[in-house]
């Protein structure tokens, strides 16, 4: 205990050397005494009382004093996200940042100190800007373009239609959301969960359901970016759980055994032309998807040009990493309990689950439909239709695993990649269409 006194002795000594420095107080002379009465009142209190009051006052600022049940539930959800990411390797590159973000966003705080993500001027709010304005998703697409090999698509263009068919999930969910009472733009943003594409979902919801736009009838749309993003990412992580039962239900054993002929080799020239032609054709049809599709194909051109490997490498490593970190943690933090735990969020989660089911069915059934017109070794294994939902590459992997179960030598992976990546293009096109109609 004597050491404590020693410490205080030192401090006292040090702070009392002030007069030695010969400083006058001129710099603070301008202060006016607005708190006199308060001072006089508190002058009576003993010093220990004061300190105790200080701690009591500080306690009001702590999370212990301000925590709500919602905060604790969300923190638990955040921990579960992290657990799933670490333990089961379910998309850890996003579940771990998002899970941590959920925790960060639900640390209870007293408003007004620029702490929370929704408080203007806070650091989290500045970083969240890239989500609210839809800036992060195109940058992620740039990186995805720079790492994606579209060969399987070029080799077998007709498989692109499977990626289109799965978009029924988007539009059916949109309709479902309307049924549940959401207005048109909100329903459009919710529908895109069926696209099974995180960045696309964030991009569209930041444009349609951002809590800023005003509808013709004068009401403001709700801010649903958080629930939509979380729902999209959650279900994508759960693709290995959602898809297999549907696949078994809708295909016969004989269909699951269909072998497809290996894709042809694709020349570098074709790979170079793909991003240019893809950019022009898809954005001419759906110009509102320009930020997403423009960046996706730009990234792919950087990869395939053979001259800009250095830029492609940066786009698909450090650049996408930085954006992923910032996107993940801020999307997570946007789930602050008081704005996130609502009936809307619950409905969105329900709709999201249905949308994945419909999208999977759409892809599968359309593959069977195409088989009506194809013959011999041209026939498709309908399982690969399920990969049209995107959720790259997990759903292609699921297709592969299901194919292996039916016939251990039937390697469907390369075939499933084609609908898988065309599902990404398809849902970006769909996002552009919805934006054109409702934006």
């Amino acid at each position, binding site marked *: 205990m004597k050491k404590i006194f020693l410490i205080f002795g030192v401090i006292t000594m040090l702070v009392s050397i002030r007069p030695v420095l010969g400083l006058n107080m001129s710099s*603070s002379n301008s202060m006016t*005494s607005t708190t006199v009465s308060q001072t006089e009142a508190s002058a009576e209190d003993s010093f220990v009382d004061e300190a105790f009051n200080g701690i009591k006052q500080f306690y009001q600022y702590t999370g212990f004093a301000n925590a709500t049940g919602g905060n604790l539930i969300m923190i638990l959800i955040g921990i579960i996200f992290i657990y799933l990411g670490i333990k089961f390797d379910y998309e850890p590159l996003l579940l771990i940042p998002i899970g941590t973000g959920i925790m960060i966003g639900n640390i209870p705080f007293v408003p007004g100190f620029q702490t929370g993500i929704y408080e203007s001027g806070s650091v989290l709010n500045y970083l969240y800007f890239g989500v609210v304005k839809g800036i992060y998703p195109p940058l992620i697409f740039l990186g995805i373009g720079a790492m994606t090999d579209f060969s399987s698509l070029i080799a077998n263009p007709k498989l692109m239609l499977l990626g289109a068919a799965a978009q029924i999930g988007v539009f059916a969910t949109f309709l479902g959301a309307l049924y549940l009472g959401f207005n048109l733009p909100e329903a459009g943003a919710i529908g895109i969960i069926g696209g099974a594409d995180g960045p696309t979902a964030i991009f569209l919801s930041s444009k349609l359901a951002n809590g800023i736009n005003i509808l013709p009838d004068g009401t403001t749309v709700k801010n649903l970016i958080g629930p939509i993003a979380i729902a999209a990412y959650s279900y994508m992580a759960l693709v290995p759980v959602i898809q297999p039962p549907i696949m078994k239900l809708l295909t016969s054993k004989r269909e699951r055994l269909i072998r497809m002929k290996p894709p042809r080799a694709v020349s570098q020239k074709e790979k170079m032309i793909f991003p240019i032609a893809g950019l022009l054709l898809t954005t001419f049809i759906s110009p509102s998807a320009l930020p997403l599709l423009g960046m996706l194909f730009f990234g792919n051109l950087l990869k395939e040009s053979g001259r800009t490997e250095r830029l492609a490498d940066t786009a698909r490593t450090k650049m996408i990493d930085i954006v992923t970190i910032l996107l993940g943690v801020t999307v997570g933090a946007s789930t602050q309990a008081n704005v996130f735990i609502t009936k809307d969020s619950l409905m969105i989660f329900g709709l999201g689950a249905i949308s994945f089911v419909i999208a999977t069915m759409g892809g599968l059934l359309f593959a069977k439909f195409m088989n009506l017109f194809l013959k011999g070794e041209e026939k498709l294994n309908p399982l690969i239709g399920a990969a049209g939902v995107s959720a790259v590459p997990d759903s292609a992997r699921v297709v592969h*695993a299901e194919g292996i179960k039916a016939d*251990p030598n039937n390697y469907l992976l390369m075939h499933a990649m084609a609908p898988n990546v065309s599902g990404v293009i398809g849902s970006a096109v769909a996002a552009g269409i919805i934006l054109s109609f409702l934006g």
Partner: protein
Amino acid sequence: MMFTKLYIDQLDEGYVILITGLTIVFFALLLLAAFFKFALPVMLYIYKIITKGRDKKIKDIPIETDKRFTGEVAAAISTAIHLYLKEQHDSENAVLTIKQARKMYSPWSSKIYGTHQSLK
């Protein structure tokens, strides 16, 4: 004097913040220390007890092949060849990258390192 009162007042609040602050910092780190000293071992022990069987996930399922080579695996092999070529392409890319790295960046006014190569 007004000013002195305010000034002393500030110092007063300063001392309160000093004591309060130090107390809280100590408390925070004490709490963290206690958690790792006492709570965590208990938690880890409980976790060990409740998780006996390890969950399986799709990626852990081994892809079993039947070992016998038949004509039917043609597709698989061609896929493998495709992958193999792809792999080569990958290593080519790696080499390209190294070359690029040597060549450095260029956007006008910057391919300086590149100039050394033309003499080799």
